[in-house]
């Protein structure tokens, strides 16, 4: 089973939702964009991306439709649903809380050991 070992567990959904919150995009573009925006730090493996997209769609957070790309090919594009937008806000908030908390712990740790 290919798990997103290069991503913190559970953040892939957040990244996907956030990426398509600006405009509808297909799978390839989503992977590309995450990679570019993170300065090539976050590598989304396709093995994780597509199951995640399908899961999010089945959960009703995103919706898909077929569009023609600039290159003239049919691509499956994913759009955030209204429910998905709410979900994104919730996950963002949770992420903030978590990363703040983790940051606090990490910064505190060396002082405590001294």
């Amino acid at each position, binding site marked *: 089973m290919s798990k997103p070992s290069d991503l913190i567990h559970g953040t892939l959904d957040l990244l996907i939702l956030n990426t398509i919150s600006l405009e509808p995009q297909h799978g390839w573009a989503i992977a590309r964009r995450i990679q570019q925006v993170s300065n090539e730090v976050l590598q989304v493996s396709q093995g994780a991306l597509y199951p995640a997209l399908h899961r999010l769609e*089945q959960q*009703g957070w995103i919706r898909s439709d077929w569009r023609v790309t600039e290159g003239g090919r049919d691509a499956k594009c994913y759009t955030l649903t209204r429910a998905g937008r709410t979900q994104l806000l919730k996950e963002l908030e949770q992420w903030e809380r978590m990363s703040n908390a983790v940051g606090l712990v990490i910064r505190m740790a060396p002082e405590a050991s001294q």
Partner: protein
Amino acid sequence: MNLRRSYDILRLRWRSLVRRGQVERELDKELAFHLAQQVAENIAQGMPADEARAAAERALGGLAQIQEECRDMRRTNHIETLANDLRYALRSLRRTPAFTVIIVLTLALSIGANSAIFSVIQGVLLRPLPYPHPDRLMRIYFQSDTQPKFPLNPNDFRDFRARNRAFESVAAVTRHDVQLSGSGEPVMLSGFQVSAGYFHMLGISPARGHEFSTDDELDGRGRSVILSDRLWRTRFSADPGILGRTLTLDQQPFIVAGIMPPGAHHPGNNFHAVADGETVDVWCPFDFGADTNDRFSHFLDAFGRLKPGVSREQANADLAAVLAQMKIEQGGNGWRVYTLPLFQETVGRTRNMLLLLLGAVGLLLLIACVNAANLLLARGSSRVREIAVRSALGAARGRIVRQLLTESLVIALAGATLGTLLAVGGVRVLVACLPAGFPRAAEIRLDSGVFAFTLLVALLTGLLFGLVPAITASRTDLQQSLRESGRGATGSGRQSRLRNLLVAGETSLACVLLIAAGLLLHSFVNLLRADPGFRPQQVLTASILLPPEQYRDVARRVQFFERLVATLEALPGVPAAGVGSDLPWTGYDGNADGYRIEGRPADYQTMARYHTASPDYFRALGTPLVHGRFLTVRDTADSPAVIVVNEAMANRYWPGEDAVGKRISFRGKPEEKDWIRIVGVVKDVKDQPDSSWVRPAFWLAYAQEPDRGMSVVVRATSAPSVVASQLRQAVRQLNPDLAVGDLRFMDQIADAAFSGQRFALFLVGLFAALALALATFGMYGVISYSVNRRMGEFGLRMALGARPWDLMRLIVGQGVALAAAGAAAGLLCAVALSRWLASLLYGIRGADPVTFAAVALLALATATLACYLPARRATGADPMRSLRSE
């Protein structure tokens, strides 16, 4: 929000299920697009085309795996898997039709039996009584040291009704059959007199008209009647205009006050089961009469509806307080109040028998399960290769277990479907065979509850018999089974141990059932053998009710019956005829007052059944005289009062003395004329053939205590049908307006009295026979399988000089050892369970050595039989072939 989201989700699931092909194509297309983009990017970075493609495919990883994971996200895959498993199960079951048919049929039989018995239990024991808030309905009785349940006195009842605070309403009824005449042949109607508000207390009301008020209870009023729906339809062709019209009942005018709706149940009575359900034709008001001082005659069946929130104990205490007050006002007597739920009173006596039947069918189902498990195990070992191949191809163990379980569930559901069909017929047969007077028989049917029960049983059954074989099969050693050729691919030692265990278990369960059946059989034989105290053969009985107005003068009653008996006895082929207040074994209303014995203190506790009889009543019934004399025609209204008692009464109150010549009285302070002399002692007759004791009883001379309603008993040597018409003719000659009711032969009555035992015996016997057949079949299967596996070994043994007899002994010994182990376990269980059965047995203890020995022998004998055929086959083993093949 989530309406939209739910809609999205549902649409997707539906699409994945129904438009599976399109969804799959889209998935392919999506991944292909991704691949193409990657390839294009690689080329743009300067890779050659073929390298660019290879790199892209590498980056994407296992395509099939991604697809599978995407499919998993659809959440519909378990449905698809199920569909696949089902298809596969059906295919593999079709491949072994004999196996499938046998297993489905045995399951169908036992599931069907369970559904049928459960529908009886559901209708009788589980469904609440058909009244609103039935749990608040109570029966109210008196109780004393000698009488567990005694009817109420009318005036006592009125005091309870006026003074109690625990009940919303109370009501009382008493059996009161009437004769309907006017149009056509007069008929006897089964009827009750009821106090005001009786139906209201039950929570039902007439469909037309109204029920009786307290005005109707007054002395000399009460000339109104409520008809049952059945009578209204059959006799008055459902004419609504009948309301307010006048009917002739007992040759008196009665105004029709109401008509009950269909299915208005009259609650049954423990003594007179005849009052169950819709067998009641008419209800008339109970006339309390003018005598407000009588506190001695007890004949009212009392009911009450508790106020909400009042418990049975509180109600009991409340009535006890009223009774204590009444004692202060009227003087003491030994009665206590006893209330019990109407439900318990109505169906309580059937509980043990129904639970016995449920236990029996439950055991039968368990045996069928074990049998099915055994067959599946045997089949599993012949499918070892198939399963090994499947797991070699990557099927996970859980998948294989799931696949095999699907198979057993399919079998169980097929069995349940067929079983339900059997139950549809079975319930009809069951209801038709129910013992006489079985309560709530009309409410027994297959309904959604029974279907739910059947489905549940089927699922549990499928899991129960499928799980062990499935796990065993999935645990097979992959390597070994693939390596071994077809010949050796059989179960391991562990597996044959498991199968032996199952067969022994099956035998022990069957033994438990056989013992139950054997005990019932032994008890039934005891019942048939017991001396009933009368000779039921060739006796015709009937009931005659003289209308009150025409026969207000008691001398006319005596005259009527004397003439009737004389006419009958003058007939050729009628050696004896008589009349009595009732017949043996027809139930008894508990009317057994205390009496005073001459020379004993006034508070001496006595009780006995109260009857009246004409001189030849005993001779007609065939009840022998033990001592003294029978009643005679010289015992008239003017001669000294005399009485005949049974042996039980003589022995209980005059032990070691001669009861003949002793005197008793029903008066508190008897004068000389109030003493009644015992002139004879007759043989005991029990209340019911299976009663555990004989109740003391006495018979007053009919001429000295004449009643209006009597049972006629005619002993005949000529053809019974001729006697029946002669009886009708004799009555018509004396009074053309009289109906002859309840024409029955005494052996029919005796038959009905045995029907409960016969019913239980028949069903438990049937289930036990099925169980034995299944166990024998299971034994045959296991032995036959083991013989097949060991044919080579047997050939070698023969080559080494074993005789056929030795092989026989070896194989039969194996079976008998299994059966003996099973039987021993079964007998031990039966000892524990038989105590519980004891209440249904007559004349034997639960641990009856005869039955136990017989069942053990039977188990061993059938095991020997089951082993015989496989053993015969073993003796035909060819030594040469074994030698060659090894």
